[in-house]
């Protein structure tokens, strides 16, 4: 583990794997909940956790790198089920990349329990991991100028659901009616780092 200083009041904790990042994130949330850590933002990402708004980042850096970070606690949270119609415009391309028949994409994808590794790109957009590495796919060579809200896409090791219409370069395999982001709801984001997710195929949503 490395703790890189970022400006005068932030730290970027860098680890070797997504699992370690999850463990570090869980440990930092625990410390904050217990009042042991005063910080404005804790932002997990692929191999890092950013801590922003620290008063003494140097001291925390030496504490963190000296401590043993326990593995992330057991997955106690409920599973969020997202109904999905596997009818995306890139389904055939994904099937070809996976070297399976088109109908197999839904079966493989819906059999996985995913976890939100981190959020970004847009409010409520989660980067979901869980697919084995052999199912990694590249982004589309030319991004679409418009992707509709609820579109389910793949890029690299991640699955994501567009919370609102936006441009996008992910390979679209389906559509969900679930509302990923609603700022009048508490919580506004359906998915947050650590959330467990399953996609449930439906004939028509």
């Amino acid at each position: 583990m490395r703790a890189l200083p970022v400006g005068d009041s932030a730290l970027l904790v860098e680890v070797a794997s997504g699992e370690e990042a999850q463990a570090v994130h869980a440990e930092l949330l625990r410390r904050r909940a217990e009042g042991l850590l005063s910080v404005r933002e804790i932002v997990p990402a692929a191999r890092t956790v950013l801590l922003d708004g620290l008063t003494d980042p140097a001291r925390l850096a030496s504490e963190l790198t000296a401590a043993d970070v326990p593995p992330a606690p057991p997955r106690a949270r409920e599973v969020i089920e997202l109904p999905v119609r596997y009818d995306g415009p890139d389904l055939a391309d994904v099937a070809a990349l996976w070297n399976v028949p088109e109908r197999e994409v839904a079966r493989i994808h819906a059999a996985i329990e995913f976890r939100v590794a981190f959020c970004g790109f847009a409010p409520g957009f989660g980067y979901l991991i869980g697919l084995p590495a052999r199912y990694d796919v590249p982004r589309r060579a030319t991004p679409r100028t418009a992707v509709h809200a609820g579109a389910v896409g793949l890029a690299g090791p991640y699955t994501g659901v567009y919370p609102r219409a936006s441009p996008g370069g992910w390979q679209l395999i389906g559509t969900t009616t679930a509302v990923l982001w609603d700022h009048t709801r508490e919580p506004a984001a359906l998915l947050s780092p650590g959330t467990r997710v399953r996609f449930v195929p439906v004939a028509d949503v």
Partner: protein
Amino acid sequence: MTDSAFAVVRAGALTTVQDLGRPGHAHLGVPRSGALDGPAAALVNRLVGNLPEAAVLETTLNGCAVRPRSTILVAVGGAPCPVTVDGRPVAWGAPVHVPAGALLDIGTAVSGVRSYVAFAGGVGVEPVLGSRSTDLLSGLGPAPLTNGAILPLGSPMSLHARVDVAPQPRPPVELVLRVTLGPRDDWFTPEAVRTFTSRAYRVSSASNRIGLRTEGPALERALTGELPSEGMVLGAVQVPPDGRPVVFLADHPTTGGYPVIAVVRPSDLPAAAQAVPGTPVRFVAVRRR
């Protein structure tokens, strides 16, 4: 609709509602947003007796014009500009009474980019996640002003002591940004790091509330791989594939996949918000505090 409101007569190039923003939600992909020139927004709020968290208008280059429905105290600051009420010049950087139905016009900035308009009671649009700020990256908060829009105003407070006049810094002729190197300076050649901290850049016209883009010598990478997405801070100097540094401002994305060569001191960012395209920029490396 109550009388505590104003109508937008001329929206200007880009006028948004801004307050202190919505920090604390970066882990959900929500940018912090908020006034780019925080001290200017705080000052105009003080001039009309508002608390620092009251929402103000942030204009871009050519101001805006509004018509309050009831008599109200306003103050304009930030980028210096002519201010008129029904065509008559009034003070910039001082509290001004605007009669009900009169036209308050905030003119084109004489220097700088963003003027700030405070109304006693603050702009009263519905907050989203605790903030009334318009976030241009994610679309949270009220839409930018449009001609004919009606915006509500809050109730003026009488408790907060207001000030009559206050000095304001001039927009920069040269933008000097103090930076601490890292966290990804090792992704660049030593020559590139020297170039970054010694050569002159200019503010690009492609700059916006998301980032201050620059023109100047491209910075060469030592590592050519792809950086996994990581969390981004305000003031991060990200270097995209074209090699020209981009300084992240309030509406910056919460995560990013281009390496951050350095981070600008927060106290230097208000000046960055007021630097017009073409302004010379120097990045000066300083020791971490």
